[in-house]
């Protein structure tokens, strides 16, 4: 159809786009694919390197031996068991703190807050908090906890929980929003209190998405180093006690060993990196499975 209004206007060219327009289109399409390939390269590179170099370091002793050897020692002396235990304990406790609080916060925002000033402020600040660098969380917990109570795995958990909280709030909020109001109203009609509606109807309806969001937050926390540097100090032997005494974790060990020129230290760094990546990947895969099979309401 030609543009009818103004006969003097240029008519629209309905032929196939001219040569250079088509080439331009093709070039841009190719460039977009190239962008994707450029993204693939470092990812592939890093994964291949970590697996190749880390695999030779991994052994049952590496994963379980609780004495971390001095940097200069070659591979085979001691192991990273202390760091594995530390990572698991510290991250688990952080999840224990952050996930319930985050879910409750999101429930507040979605169910109770509405359009009120306070709710808007909390939502806004929660978004702002996701952008705060993780090192700030570490410094913060150092100032208000470590200075008074000393280094401990607990302090590390607090720092990681501060990091996870806004992430869990945001993802839970998005999931709660997707639950249709008809569910809530039906439950109200049957005479439930708001708390009951939320806990017995809304939460289970969104549980898939909530869990998967929480798992991703845990994966993120497990890989964080900066918050731990100021809160757990370091140890050379497994400290099972989360609440007293310094501790260590995989990301911290990787960081320290990466800066060392010793061959043994670098090998241990690669092994720890492979272990850490395995943990985070497993969490990510489980999150995906949960999303696929247990989530009722998706965007």
């Amino acid at each position, binding site marked *: 159809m030609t543009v009818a209004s103004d006969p003097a206007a240029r008519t629209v060219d309905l032929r196939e786009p001219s040569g250079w327009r088509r080439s331009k289109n093709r070039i841009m399409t190719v460039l977009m694919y190239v962008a994707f390939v450029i993204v693939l390269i470092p990812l592939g590179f890093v994964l291949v390197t970590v697996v190749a170099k880390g695999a030779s370091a991994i052994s049952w002793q590496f994963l379980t031996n609780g004495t971390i050897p001095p940097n200069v020692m070659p591979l085979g002396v001691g192991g990273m068991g202390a760091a594995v235990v530390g990572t698991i304990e510290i991250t688990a406790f952080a999840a224990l703190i952050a996930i319930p609080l985050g879910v409750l916060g999101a429930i507040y925002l979605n169910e109770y807050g509405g359009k009120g000033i306070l709710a808007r402020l909390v939502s806004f600040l929660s978004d702002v908090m996701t952008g705060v660098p993780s090192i700030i969380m570490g410094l913060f917990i150092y100032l208000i906890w470590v200075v008074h109570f000393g280094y401990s795995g607990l302090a590390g958990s607090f720092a990681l929980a501060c990091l996870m*909280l806004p992430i869990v709030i945001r993802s839970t909020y998005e999931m709660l929003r997707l639950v249709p109001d008809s569910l809530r109203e039906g439950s109200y009609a049957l005479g439930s*209190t708001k708390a009951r509606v939320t806990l017995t109807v809304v939460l289970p309806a969104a549980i898939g998405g909530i869990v998967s969001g929480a798992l991703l937050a845990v994966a993120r926390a497990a890989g964080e180093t900066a918050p731990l540097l100021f809160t757990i100090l370091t140890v050379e032997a497994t400290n099972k006690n989360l609440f007293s005494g310094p501790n260590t974790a995989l990301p911290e060990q*990787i960081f320290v060993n990466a800066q060392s020129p010793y061959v043994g230290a670098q090998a241990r760094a690669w092994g720890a990196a492979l272990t850490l990546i395995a943990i*985070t990947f497993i969490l990510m895969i489980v999150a995906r499975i949960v999303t696929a099979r247990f989530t009722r309401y998706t965007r």
Partner: protein
Amino acid sequence: MSAVKEADPASPAGSANALNHRRPLGDRGFQILTLAAGLLVLIILALIAISMAQQSTTWFTTAGLKGIFSVDWDPATNNFGALGFLYGTVICSVIALIIGVPISVGVAMLLTQVVSVRWSRPVVTVIDLLAVVPSVVWGLWGIIVLAPWLQHIYLHIASAVNGIPVLDTLFGGPNVSGASFFTAGIILAIMITPIITSLSREVIATVPAIDKEGAYALGATRWEMIRGAVWPHSQAGVTSAILVGLGRALGETIAVALVIGNSDEITGHLFYSGSSIAATIALQFGEATGGEFRSALIGLGLFLFVLTIIVNLGARAIVERSARRTRGA
């Protein structure tokens, strides 16, 4: 007719007095619990600001504005000038944006406009994988594998641009190192790509189909459609996504600490070693025993905190402003 009172959702049916608006204790308690959880965010942010401001006053008062923004950072002589770190932080983030933005936006466009739904899932998986690799692993790979390899390339570039005016200042110089601003910028670009891509995707997906089809109907090629229909709509959102990515780059600590080389020089040479605010805090905190040293590091942290908040606020402001504009339209 009998008045059908609307059942108050907050009161259980069958309560003795239908006009009784007092809610059961458990319900009220739960509401307070959720409110407290929500307020936690406020409390934590406020405490962060207060505690860090309090601890850094020693540095502010002792060094003064001049001291803080000087180039000389030497704990041994009690000089804590942070300009070099500020410079390093900004330079690396700028490099990261220059490299990362075209790639992230390109992939976002690819995902939303080019690939079919079937292929979009593997592509999204790749982006998610990229996001899940911990920053310390990027740093480890960066310093042991990437940096030595890049050093060769930097040396070749440096000898190639030797003598050419502007290029020599940027890419030349005898002290090129694999651990440098540019390498940190590359690693940062890789790390901020997932966040920019996923945020951009969300925005681009909200472009109304009718605009896109209208462009096609007028005979546009896909690229022309993107330029004419998608971009104007998603411009603000993508810019906001870029700012969020910038915020991440400014605050990234560990990967940068490992690959930036740790020198507090301010230099135009991008292939030279430098340092960033976050990297300095992470690497020097263990040695900071003196009052002013520690206060200076916390002051740096406060600075970073404020900077990243401003950038994130900017990101939100852009989105709000454009949303207001489209709402009003």
